[in-house]
């Protein structure tokens, strides 16, 4: 448990020292490979499969440089972030109590879990058409799909975490005179917290994956004030770039999403560390 946590953490905690430089070397090597690969026809005289079709990092970084000066690009990022946040927050608010209730009550578990298990394997993207029909605005439809992306992961982690709490903790608490509420508050809640953090960290990544796809399919959503392509979020931005034939924009959009997802997970890990200080390396 502690070991797994330590490995997962290393990404968020490489601020100083060896680990930082290792990361830098890896990124530089990756960029070099990409640059050489995408220019392979000119430079090496043959085409490296797949990579040779991609615009080189120099072109992409130039594109990114142009894009970050455009307010509409930032607005796309903002729209996607809001959708991610809405869906993710709703998934936490609904998923954590639901998971806890299923873990605590055998009766509720018996009732809710079969339904949950039937809905869970349905990919969030399969929900897109239904979601568009269900919800009055497209904005809500997209947020709902992102919600589903994180929701199932969070619930499953909460149930698993709560059920994995050692029975001896309950016996010890019980024999020291704990009431049910006391056991819930001081044993079940903190005992489940590490799994909630894991569920949230994994869930937010899925949320990014889902929001982008949902935007592509639903055609951008609240185009309203900003008009057309620019207002549809990062997913729509990528799709629109593909339709418009701008490959550098596609890759630039992809990288932006990668960075956004990384920042989200890193932030959640930081919050998680702060919430579970007993898991820190001794």
């Amino acid at each position: 448990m502690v070991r797994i946590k330590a490995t997962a953490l290393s990404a968020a905690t490489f601020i100083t020292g060896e680990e930082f430089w290792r990361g830098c070397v890896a990124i530089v090597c990756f960029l070099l490979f990409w640059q050489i690969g995408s220019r392979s026809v000119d430079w090496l005289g043959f085409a490296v499969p797949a990579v040779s079709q991609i615009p080189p990092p120099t072109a992409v970084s130039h594109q990114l440089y142009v894009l970050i000066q455009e307010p509409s690009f930032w607005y796309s990022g903002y729209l996607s972030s809001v959708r991610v946040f809405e869906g993710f927050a709703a998934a936490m608010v609904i998923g954590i109590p639901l998971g806890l209730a299923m873990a605590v009550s055998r009766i509720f578990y018996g009732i809710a879990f079969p339904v949950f298990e039937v809905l869970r394997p349905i990919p969030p993207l399969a929900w897109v058409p239904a979601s568009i029909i269900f919800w009055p605005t497209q904005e809500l439809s997209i947020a709902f799909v992102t919600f589903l992306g994180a929701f199932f992961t969070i619930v499953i982690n909460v149930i698993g975490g709560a059920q994995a709490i050692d029975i001896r903790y309950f016996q010890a608490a019980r024999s020291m005179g704990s009431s049910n509420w006391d056991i819930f508050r001081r044993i079940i809640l903190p005992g489940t917290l590490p799994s909630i953090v894991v569920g949230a960290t994994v869930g937010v990544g899925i949320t990014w994956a889902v929001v982008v796809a949902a935007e592509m399919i639903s055609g951008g959503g609240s185009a309203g004030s900003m008009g057309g392509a620019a207002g549809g979020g990062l997913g729509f931005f990528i799709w629109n770039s593909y339709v418009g034939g701008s490959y550098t924009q596609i890759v630039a959009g992809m990288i932006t999403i990668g960075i956004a997802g990384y920042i989200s997970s890193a932030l959640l890990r930081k919050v998680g560390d702060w919430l579970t200080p007993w898991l820190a390396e001794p």
Partner: protein
Amino acid sequence: MSSEITVNGVCKSYGVGNFAKTVVQDCSFTVPRNKLTVMVGPSGCGKTTLIRLLAGFERPTSGKITIDDKLVTGPGVDRMVVFQETALFPWMSTYDNIMYGPRARGEDTPEMRDLAETLLQKVGLSAFRHKYPSQLSGGMQRRAELARSMINRPSVMMLDEPFRGLDAMTKRLMQEYYSKLYDDFRRTTFFVTTDIDEAIFLADRVLIMTNIPTRVRTVIDVKLPRPRKVEAIFESDEANAIKMQALSLLHEEAMKSFSHGSKAAADFIDAYSKRVGG
């Protein structure tokens, strides 16, 4: 303040029909008031089951367990159990762990906080009050757990192989710590172990158990003077005599568990013990 436990004709089986397995059969003994009773038996004989029955986590299939003539029907604050492996709450500091019981009962009073300080000092963990269990050594965890139980001033303390898994040196230190704590806070105690030296060093009374399904084979009273010292105890002839007696009984029981279900093994052991005996 302290209580007396009576176990009367207790049986405990698990499963039903052909799959039923009887772990405790017709077991009777008493844990006398303000005495330290140690139960010793071959491993896997059902000692943990018995402690779980006394604690009220499980109900006997038949027979009666009473504490001061009151039937045990479930866990209670009058009985504290210290488990085989540490059951300290990992998300609480040493101090919060010790204060768990008082807080659970709404007794976060200055008296209790004082008692927590005293106990922290007695188990040598004052400097580690803000550490989490994962930051403590195995021995420290066991001591924190002893303190966490003691603070509830239970009328019965039950300890299920509390020093198992500690290295030899730490184990000895813990036995001395525990012996001192017991002398200071004398109360009815039921202590389970597989270690005969530990049993004789700590006990007022030793129960030697049979192999599974378990019941009491022999009761030995240990009348060695207190306080006791680990290095001094086996210089006494009485202690050694008890040890020899207990060892031969335990050897017999262990052999039974060895030959269990195998005619060939039983014959072998039979022949072997005849040879040794002759």
